[in-house]
């Protein structure tokens, strides 16, 4: 088959592969060629090992030929954010600190992908250690938005979002600590889902903020996101925070509408700083749901105004502790300067980390330091409880809460890089979800006049991903935004 299949979804590709209309190797070749053609402009990938990808594809073809049982993603290429450990392959976290690091084991989600017979096609760019909202904090490159190459793709999982949006991979994995899957999904016009805290094992995910981090899927549409989520979700004894709860077959129920459906709309998500075109698109999406019989009701999330402040204390405090492991001893960069052990630590870290990572380590260390811990860190944990209570109250009367994923469409490269606070505020609608541990998905819901994608955020109660996906799919069936593809 010589037809270009790179714009297809995984659900469309799987039957072609199963019937033998295309081999896994030929399909992988198409995506590798797409990467060679388009990625010099998009810069979504940090590492692509063509030979290794082809070998995985050939192994799938061999298994199929021999009549062996194949996994649910057999032959489908998946891109992976370069913060997830892949055995023997570079895992840089977008940092000079880990420039030469090759993990001795696979992350749990990578093991799951291999068991599913997916083809790991490459590692994608990110803000250093997943800290940022634009990929501009990567030590290696800035990824460009496939819809407008002068703009950022969002972050921190900007490489994964852009890889799917540019049809360089049909599926990708990202991680979300404060919006790092949903915000780039919104800005790149793809679907991105952050599972409930504990739904997916964090084993082998290089830690940023351990009480907030989750791994989740990127896809062209909700059906594919469901398929990838069910592949990676579930208990893993190596992460004691991964919950031992059955994983529903999301892909089998995703087409079942939720009726009756009550949608909560928080006025706090429609305040100052919200772009007029984004607001219009989100309100139009709510009308679509009303047309499908849903009831839309006002809810209040009064503490969401404090979510960004709370997050930048909790996340940085945890990061300052997690990133203490980079000491120039076990792995990672070591300064070539001479001196005491302490000098070696300080120089290695000073040389290895970029500006945003240093800023967050500093803020977190300050917030945990003697004399300030109660005023900052503990206070933030109390406000975190109030943010969670707000959601519990909302979900007592609504199935989901909807609003914009990001306050604006994709901004220009360089526009916010000199002002850390302005950058932090681009996560204003996504951050509370992580603090509360609930689930959230961003689905494409329109384009601005100049053609930039807009995302609708749907937030659901903990471990209600099945309902969340079904509700997202209801909108998708009634609209065609998810069928548009960026032409790079």
């Amino acid at each position, binding site marked *: 088959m010589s037809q270009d299949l790179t714009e297809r979804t995984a659900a469309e590709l799987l039957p072609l592969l199963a019937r033998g209309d295309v081999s896994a190797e030929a399909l992988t070749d198409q995506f590798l060629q797409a990467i060679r053609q388009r990625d010099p402009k998009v810069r979504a990938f940090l590492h692509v090992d063509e030979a290794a990808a082809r070998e995985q594809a050939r192994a799938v073809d061999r298994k199929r030929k021999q009549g062996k049982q194949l996994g649910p993603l057999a032959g489908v290429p998946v891109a992976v954010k370069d913060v997830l450990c892949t055995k023997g392959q570079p895992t840089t976290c977008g940092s000079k600190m880990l420039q*030469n690091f090759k993990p001795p084991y696979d992350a749990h989600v990578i093991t799951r992908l291999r068991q599913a017979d997916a083809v790991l096609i490459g590692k994608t760019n990110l803000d250093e250690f997943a800290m940022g909202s634009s990929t501009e904090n990567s030590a290696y490159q800035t990824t460009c938005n496939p819809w407008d190459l002068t703009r950022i793709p969002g972050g921190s999982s900007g490489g994964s979002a852009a890889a799917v949006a540019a049809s360089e991979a049909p599926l990708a994995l990202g991680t979300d600590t404060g919006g790092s899957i949903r915000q780039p999904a919104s800005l790149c016009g793809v679907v991105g889902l952050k599972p409930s805290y504990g739904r997916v094992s964090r084993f082998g995910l290089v830690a940023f903020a351990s009480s907030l981090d989750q791994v989740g899927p990127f896809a062209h549409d909700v059906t594919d996101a469901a398929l990838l989520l069910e592949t990676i979700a579930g208990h893993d004894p190596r992460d004691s925070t991964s919950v031992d709860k059955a994983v529903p077959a999301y892909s089998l129920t995703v087409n079942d509408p939720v009726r009756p459906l009550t949608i909560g709309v928080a006025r706090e998500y429609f305040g100052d700083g919200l772009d007029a075109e984004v607001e219009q698109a989100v309100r139009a999406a709510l009308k679509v749901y009303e047309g499908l019989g849903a009831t839309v009701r006002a809810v209040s999330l009064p503490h969401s105004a404090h979510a960004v402040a709370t997050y930048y204390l909790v996340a940085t405090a945890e990061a300052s502790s997690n990133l203490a492991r980079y000491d120039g001893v076990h792995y990672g960069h070591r300064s070539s300067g001479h001196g005491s052990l302490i000098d070696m630590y300080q120089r290695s*870290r000073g040389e290895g980390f970029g500006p945003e990572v240093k800023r967050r380590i500093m803020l977190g260390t*300050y917030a945990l330091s003697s004399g300030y811990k109660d005023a900052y860190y503990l206070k933030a*944990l109390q406000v975190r409880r109030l943010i969670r209570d707000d959601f519990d109250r909302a979900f007592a009367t609504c199935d989901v809460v909807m609003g914009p994923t990001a306050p604006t469409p994709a901004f220009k490269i360089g526009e916010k890089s000199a002002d850390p606070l302005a950058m932090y505020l681009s996560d204003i609608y996504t951050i509370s979800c992580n603090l509360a*541990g609930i689930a959230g998905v961003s689905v494409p819901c329109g384009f601005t006049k100049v053609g930039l994608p807009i995302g609708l955020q749907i937030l659901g109660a903990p471990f209600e991903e099945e309902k969340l996906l079904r509700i997202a799919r209801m909108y998708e069936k009634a609209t065609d935004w998810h069928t548009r593809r960026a032409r790079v």
Partner: protein
Amino acid sequence: MSLSAEEVAWVAHLARLELTADELATLTRQLSSIVDYVAQLQQVDTEGVEPLAHALTVHNVFRDDEPTPSLPVDEALANAPDRRTNAKGEAFYGVPAVLD
């Protein structure tokens, strides 16, 4: 609230981060404005609110104490910046002298 360069230098010491003079000046300015921003939390009434450190109720997870294979030494040391071997041929991590 404004942070002084001395305070920021002390925090950098606690974090074991070497900063250039330029970085120290930039971070002093930026951290001051971020600390001003997060100070908004002081307005929230949190009297009697239990801090939430974790979204899930975290409890101890026990498993049977059974030996399982661990990472071979060679693989564990493969990424070491200063990998050394003693007279018996055993590999270890090298660090600057801690004792004189």
